[in-house]
């Protein structure tokens, strides 16, 4: 790699954003870590001198039945959402990258699902998924796809997938947009020479498009993972974590501990577990891109 100039210039470009993030998020981050090692509730929330209780909160958390369930739910929810979002987003990005007349116009329409505030989307899907008048069941029944209405959000075995469906719908545009932008920056000459070599559409996809898009796909996946993992609004509005604990995720659990039961330290501990998992995933991502960039 050829260095363009002295290093201090680079810092000048980078530092403002770093400082901004450190100022705004560094404090909350440390605040939560400190909180999770104390025993803070409403009565001592405003005090500065709280006792250090070691890993007590984490132990208590591990003993909570809802904790294990919410970790599992968060993972299923995230993986389920991200996989479908990327696959569908990618298919749509490929489709609209074919230069037909209405492509750009129609692609704009797909973006709409992402522009609706999440609270509204949650209410909308709850409305459409209700077992009585819900349009989803009505449609599926009328085309004979199902015989009985699906209890989308009221069956503990299905409810999480009901929310995942809503989230996939929300996330597709984001994935499609970034992947489209990525696709448009791919060099055309590679495709041309591949065509000359007699490669078909599928071969070009596997051997050219996917490898070239790898960095974009990785970053999209990573961001999708982070945004989905800390989901809150959608679950909170659609089911509130129920039925039973079947849709409880880490962020709703942390919220419930902190603002419903006023166990702020327990809430902070749950949030830190969420953070830790994401942190590990980020390290893996960093490792991959470092290898990529060295290669």
């Amino acid at each position, binding site marked *: 790699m050829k260095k*363009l*100039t002295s290093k201090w210039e*680079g*810092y000048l*470009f*980078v530092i*403002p*954003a*770093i400082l901004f993030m450190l100022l*705004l*998020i560094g*404090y909350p981050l440390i605040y*939560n870590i400190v909180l999770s090692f104390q025993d803070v509730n409403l009565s001592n929330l405003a005090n500065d001198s709280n006792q250090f209780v070691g890993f007590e909160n984490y132990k208590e958390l591990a003993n909570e039945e809802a904790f294990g369930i919410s970790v599992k739910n968060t993972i299923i929810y995230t993986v389920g959402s991200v996989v479908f979002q990327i696959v569908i987003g990618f298919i749509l990005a490929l*489709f609209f990258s*074919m230069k*037909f*007349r*209405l*492509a*750009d*116009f*129609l*692609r*704009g*329409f*797909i973006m*709409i*699902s*992402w*522009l609706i*505030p999440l609270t*509204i989307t949650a*209410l909308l899907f709850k409305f*459409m998924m209700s077992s*009585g*008048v819900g*349009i989803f069941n*009505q449609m599926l029944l009328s085309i004979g796809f199902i015989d009985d209405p699906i209890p989308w959000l009221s069956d503990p075995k299905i409810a999480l997938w009901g929310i995942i469906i809503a989230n996939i719908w929300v996330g*597709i545009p984001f994935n499609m947009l*970034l992947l489209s*932008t990525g696709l*448009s*920056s791919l060099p055309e000459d590679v495709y041309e020479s591949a065509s000359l070599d007699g490669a078909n559409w599928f071969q070009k996809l596997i051997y050219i498009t996917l490898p070239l898009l790898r960095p974009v796909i990785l*970053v999209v996946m*990573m*961001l999708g993972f*982070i945004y989905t*993992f*800390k989901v*809150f609004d959608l679950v909170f509005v659609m089911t509130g974590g129920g039925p039973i604990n079947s849709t409880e995720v880490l962020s709703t659990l*942390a*919220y419930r501990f*902190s603002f419903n039961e006023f166990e702020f330290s327990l*809430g902070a501990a749950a*949030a830190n577990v*969420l953070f830790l998992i*994401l942190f590990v995933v*980020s*390290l893996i991502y*960093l490792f991959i891109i470092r290898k990529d960039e060295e290669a």
Partner: protein
Amino acid sequence: MSRRKERLLNVIGIVIVLIFIFPVFWMIITAFKSQKEIFQTPPTLWPQDFQWSSFVEIFQNGIGQYFLNSITISGLTTILVLFLAVPSAYGLARFNIKGKGSMILLFLVTQMLPATVILTPLFIMFNNFSLLNSYWGPVLSCATLGVPFSVLILRTFFIGIPKELEEAARIDGCGRLEAFIRVIIPISYPSIIVCGAISFFFSWGDLIYSITFNRNQELWPLTAGIYNAVGRYGIEWNDLMAFATVSILPVIVIFVLLQKQLVKGLVSGSIK
């Protein structure tokens, strides 16, 4: 492309879009229905009794101010995000600075806490700096989502721009910063617009920061207005959907306009 294929693609495209935006259609259609018709089985795909009363209702409840606030908050956030993120992404993409990995990690890490757990510490901090009850609370907090996002996305795109371009500019006597402003930014225009748009919509959907940091209802955005309406009317579906429709229509307009520019940018700006 043959005409037949072209026509086929258009038709498939239309079908995909129709299926995909069905929930939006349902939302808008519901806003025009009477409460009675909403509960009718089988449901009607088009209102039998087309009525505007839900829209009249919500306009009487002062949606205008909410709307202006949403624009202000989202606009300020977008400017702040781009101002911070574009240079930063460039720095991380172009310079071989020490601790680059840690910095990228930092950007990833900073967006990992759910909004609900950073509320309290941010509140304490904003209170200390007297930033409560102003646009700055939601703007700064929303920017904490947009900045890392844009840095990571833009960095990936900057890496793809050939260095020769800047070198050529520097040979012509441009300074580092000048080369960045005159060469890099115009080339990356589409990506920057995408990041700006995404940051805009991040804060467009914000609810929790505004209602926590601002007691003053005159600063509340549209989402807070909807949230309020939910409590106020116990959610009549048609009113709620009317509110939702009004809150996304302008954004869709902005987006459709932007889409054109975005595509133009993509075509003219992409460097082979």
